[in-house]
C-alpha cells in the first residue's frame, strides 16, 4: 500500500459532547484508521456507538455540543480538523461529501431540485453557467431519476427519490470521499434495497472512496469490502468484509453476527430462540424454555386463555383524497381473516401496504369503510367511543416506538397502574402488587427499582418490555404488536421477540404481529398473511410461505432481507 493510495488518515481522533448543564462525554475516543482511494468501507455499530459522530467529524460537520477535541484528519495531505471555515468550504468540492441519514429532510422544502443543484454549482463555480442544466440532468440520471424531477419540490417526491436526489447532490461536488450516514434506514424495505444497489453501482462507476455508516451489519457486509466495527466510541474491529463474516475476532462483532439469519432457512435460530426454532420445526411440544435474558415468570393467570376470536370479514378502508382532484386512497381492500384464540398471525408488507390500518380498525381507532370486524360479541366497527373500553379490556396493543409509547413524565409504576386500576378494579396495595408481578413477568427485575424509574432512565429494550407489561396489565385475550422491534438495536430484538413468544404460549393470548421483518415473523408466528397495496397476496403457515413463496411480492420482500452470507462479489 503506497502512501499515494491513502486518501484519508485519521489519527487519535476524539469527539467530545459538551451539553449544557451536563458532564462532557466522549462519543469517539482516540480513533485511528486510514482509507485508501476507491475503497468502499463500512462503519457498523449500534445506536450510541459513535459511528455517526465519527462520520460527521470526518466531513467536518460536527456542531455543538459535539466538538473535535483531539487528533488529526489528514485528507489528501491536509489536516481538515483545523482549517478555517472558508478553506473548508472550498475543500468540499472535489473533496468530501456526505449523505445524511434523514434524506427525506435533507432538501430545502421551498426550493426546486434544480435550484439545489444550481446552488452547489454557484457555490463552487466548478460548473459553468451554460453547462449547469446539462450537468444537473446528467447527475439526476446517474441516480436513476427522470430529468423531470428537477422541476419538482422535495415535498412532491417520495422518500426514496429524495434520498437519491441527496446522493446526486453529494455527487455533484465530484468528491473523492463520500460518507453515507444510514442512507437507507428511513426508507421502505424494497426501496432500501434499490437505493443500496444504486450506491454500490455509483461507487463502482465513479470510483470515489465511500464510507457506509449503518447499524445493520447485514447491509454493510453485503455492500462493502472492508468493515470497521464501532462500539462505545472505539473501533473494535477493522478488517475485510469476508474475514469479519467468517472469522470475526471481536466478541462484539460475533454477537452482532449471531442475530442474522435467513428467514427462508429450514431451521431459523437466533440467540434465545435456539430451542424454540427446533421445536417449531418439529411442530412440537409446548414446554417453555426460559430465554436466558429474562427471569422466569411467576404470575399465575386468573383467566387462563383467549376464548374469543377476531373475525375480519371483507374489510376495506378508503380515505378521502389527500388533495383535490386526486383519487381516494384505498388503504385496505377486501381483507378477510380470523384470528383464532391463542393463534399467532403475522401481517407483513412494506409501509403503505395497509397492515397498520388493519390494526387500527381492529382496535377501534379507525372505522372500516366496508365489511365487519367482530370480537366475540362485539361489533368493533359499530362501537361508540365510550364502548371502546370494553374492547380494550380484551384487545391490547404493543407499539412500534418504545420511545414514543411511554409518557416521558410518568414513572413505570404509574404507567402500569393505570390499566390495572381501570380494568381490573384492583386498588392500592393490590394494584401495586399486580404491577410488580407484571414487571417480573416481562423480566424487569429488581421490580421495585424499575417501578420507580422514568422512561428516560430505561434502555429501548427495557421500555418495550414496559409497553408489553402494560398491554398485559388487564389480562387481554388479544395482543396486537405493531412492529414491536423495528426501532430496537439488532442485539435487543431477539430478547423482546422471545418475551412475546413466551407470553403468548404461557398466557394463551392471541397475537397479531405486524411487521415488515420476515425474519421475526418466522420466529414467533404460526401463520402469515402478506399484504400488498391493501390486499392479501399470499397467506398460509409462516414457515411454508417463507420457504416456498408463490407470489412475486413475497419473493421481492424476501430478497430484500439483508443477509451477510450473500456477498456481492
Amino acid at each position: 500500500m503506497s502512501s499515494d493510495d491513502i486518501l484519508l488518515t485519521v489519527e487519535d481522533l476524539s469527539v467530545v459532547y459538551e451539553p449544557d448543564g451536563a458532564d462532557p462525554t466522549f462519543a469517539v475516543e482516540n480513533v485511528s484508521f486510514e482509507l485508501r482511494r476507491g475503497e468502499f468501507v463500512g462503519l457498523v455499530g449500534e445506536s450510541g456507538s459513535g459511528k455517526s459522530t465519527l462520520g460527521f467529524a470526518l466531513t467536518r460537520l460536527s456542531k455543538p455540543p459535539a466538538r473535535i477535541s483531539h487528533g488529526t484528519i489528514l485528507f489528501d495531505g491536509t489536516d481538515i480538523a483545523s482549517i478555517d471555515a472558508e478553506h473548508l468550504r472550498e475543500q468540499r468540492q472535489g473533496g468530501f461529501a456526505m449523505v445524511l441519514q434523514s434524506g427525506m429532510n435533507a432538501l430545502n422544502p421551498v426550493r426546486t431540485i434544480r435550484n439545489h443543484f444550481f446552488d452547489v454549482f454557484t457555490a463552487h463555480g466548478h460548473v459553468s453557467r451554460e453547462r449547469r442544466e446539462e450537468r444537473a440532468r446528467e447527475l439526476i440520471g446517474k441516480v436513476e431519476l427522470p430529468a423531470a424531477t428537477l422541476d419538482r419540490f422535495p415535498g412532491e417526491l417520495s422518500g426514496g427519490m429524495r434520498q437519491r436526489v441527496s446522493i446526486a447532490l453529494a455527487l455533484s461536488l465530484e468528491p473523492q470521499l463520500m460518507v453515507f450516514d444510514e442512507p437507507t434506514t428511513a426508507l421502505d424495505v424494497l426501496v432500501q434495497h434499490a437505493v443500496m444497489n444504486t450506491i454500490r453501482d455509483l461507487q463502482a462507476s465513479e470510483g470515489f472512496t465511500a464510507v457506509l455508516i449503518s447499524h445493520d451489519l447485514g447491509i454493510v457486509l453485503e455492500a462493502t469490502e472492508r468493515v470497521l466495527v464501532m462500539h462505545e466510541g472505539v473501533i473494535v474491529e477493522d478488517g475485510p468484509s469476508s474475514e469479519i463474516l467468517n472469522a470475526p475476532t471481536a466478541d462484539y462483532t460475533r454477537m452482532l453476527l449471531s442475530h442474522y439469519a435467513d428467514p427462508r432457512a429450514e431451521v431459523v435460530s437466533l440467540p434465545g430462540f435456539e430451542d424454540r426454532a427446533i421445536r417449531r420445526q418439529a411442530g412440537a411440544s409446548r414446554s417453555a424454555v426460559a430465554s436466558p435474558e429474562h427471569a422466569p415468570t411467576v404470575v399465575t393467570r386468573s383467566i387462563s386463555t383467549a376464548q374469543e376470536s377476531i373475525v375480519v370479514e371483507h374489510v376495506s378502508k378508503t380515505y378521502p383524497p389527500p388533495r383535490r382532484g386526486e383519487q381516494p386512497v384505498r388503504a385496505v381492500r377486501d381483507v378477510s381473516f380470523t384470528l383464532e384464540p391463542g393463534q399467532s398471525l403475522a401481517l407483513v408488507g412494506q409501509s403503505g401496504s395497509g397492515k397498520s390500518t388493519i390494526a387500527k380498525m381492529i382496535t377501534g381507532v379507525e372505522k372500516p369503510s366496508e365489511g365487519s370486524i367482530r370480537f366475540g360479541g362485539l361489533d368493533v366497527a359499530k362501537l361508540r367511543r365510550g364502548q371502546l373500553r370494553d374492547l380494550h379490556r380484551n384487545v391490547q396493543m404493543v407499539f412500534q416506538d418504545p420511545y414514543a409509547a411511554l409518557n416521558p413524565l410518568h414513572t413505570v409504576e404509574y404507567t402500569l397502574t393505570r390499566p390495572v386500576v381501570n380494568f381490573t378494579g384492583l386498588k392500592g396495595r393490590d394494584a401495586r402488587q399486580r404491577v410488580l408481578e407484571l414487571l417480573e413477568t416481562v423480566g424487569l427485575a429488581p421490580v421495585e427499582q424499575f417501578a420507580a424509574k422514568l422512561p428516560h432512565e430505561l434502555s429501548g429494550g427495557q421500555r418495550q418490555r414496559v409497553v408489553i407489561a402494560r398491554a398485559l396489565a388487564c389480562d387481554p385475550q388479544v395482543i396486537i404488536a405493531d412492529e414491536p422491534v423495528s426501532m430496537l438495536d439488532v442485539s435487543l430484538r431477539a430478547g423482546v421477540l422471545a418475551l412475546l413468544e413466551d407470553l403468548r404460549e404461557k398466557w394463551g393470548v392471541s397475537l397479531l404481529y405486524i411487521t415488515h421483518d420476515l425474519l421475526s415473523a418466522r420466529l414467533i408466528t404460526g401463520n402469515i398473511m402478506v399484504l400488498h397495496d391493501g390486499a392479501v397476496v399470499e397467506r398460509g403457515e409462516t414457515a411454508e410461505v417463507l420457504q416456498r413463496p408463490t407470489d412475486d411480492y413475497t419473493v421481492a420482500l424476501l430478497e430484500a432481507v439483508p443477509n451477510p452470507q450473500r456477498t456481492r462479489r
Partner: protein
Amino acid sequence: MTTTPITAGTPAPPPDTSVAAAASPLQVLARVAATVWSNTKARIGVVILLLFVLAAIFAPLLAPYDPSSTEFARSQDASAGHWLGTTAAGEDVLSQLIQGARISVFVGFVAGLLSTLVAVLIGLSWGYVRGWVGDVINFVVNLFLVVPGLPLMIVIAAYLQNGGIGMIILVVVITGWAWGARVLRSQTQSLRGRDFVTAAVFSGERPARIVFREILPNMTSLIVGNFFGAATSAILAEAGLEFLGLGDPSTVSWGTMLFWAQNSNALLTGQWALLFAPGLCIALLATSLTLINFGVDGLSNPRLRERRKVRK
C-alpha cells in the same frame, strides 16, 4: 405527592388511591426552573422580576410615605425628602411607584394565570375533541381573534364600569386567551397523535384524564411560556387602559400614575419623573418576563437553549 388533576367539567376520574406516583408536578416545575435558570437572559429576567415582586410584597415597608397622602407641597422637584418629587396633588412619587408595583405585579400574575387557565382548558379540549364540538370552539376562538382587542377592551371596560383592578383583569382575560388557546390546541393535536396518548386510551383512561394527566404535563414549557407572554401583555394592557382613564384612577398603580401625569401635564411642570419612572418600571417588568421566556423557549425547543461557546 399526588395532586388533583384539573378537570374540565367531565366526571372526575376514579380516585387515585394507588401509591403510584406520577412524576410530581413539583418535580416537573423544578426541572423547568433549572432549565430556565441555565439561560443567562432568563436569569437576569428572574432577578429583575424578583426585585419587583419583593418591592410589591414589602411596599408598605419600603415606601417612605403613604402613597395616597396628599399632604405634601404640590409638583415638587426631586429632593432629599422626595427622591422623585411629588405629584400635582401633593403625593410622594417614590411611594406611589413602590406601591404601584403591587398592582402591576398582581394584575400581571393573576390575569396571566387566568388567561393561561382559560387558554389551557379551551386549547386542550379543543385539540383533543373531534367533530362538531371542535368546529364550534374553532368558531368561537376565531371570533375572539378577529374582534379587535383594544377597542373591545374599551367597550368592555366602559360596560363593566367601576370594577377597578378586577374589571381590568377580566377585560385582559377576555381579550387575551384566544391566541394562547390556538397555540396550545395545535400542540395538543400533535401530542394526541403520539403513541403514549393512544396507549393511555388502551389503558382505559377517560378523555379528561388523558388531556390533563397525559397531554398537559408534556406542554409545561408551552404553558409556562404562554403564562409569561400573557402576563406581559396583561401588564401593558392594564397600563394602557388606566392611561386612557378606563380604570379606576383612585387606585395607585403605574398605569394610573401615568394617567395623572398626563392629566396634570407632568412634562410641563417638570415633574417628569412622574412620567418617566412608571413607564420605565412597566418596561422593566415586562422585559423581565420576556427575558424569562428566553429560558422557557429552551424547554420545548432544545435548539433554543444557550450553547456553550466552543473553546479552542
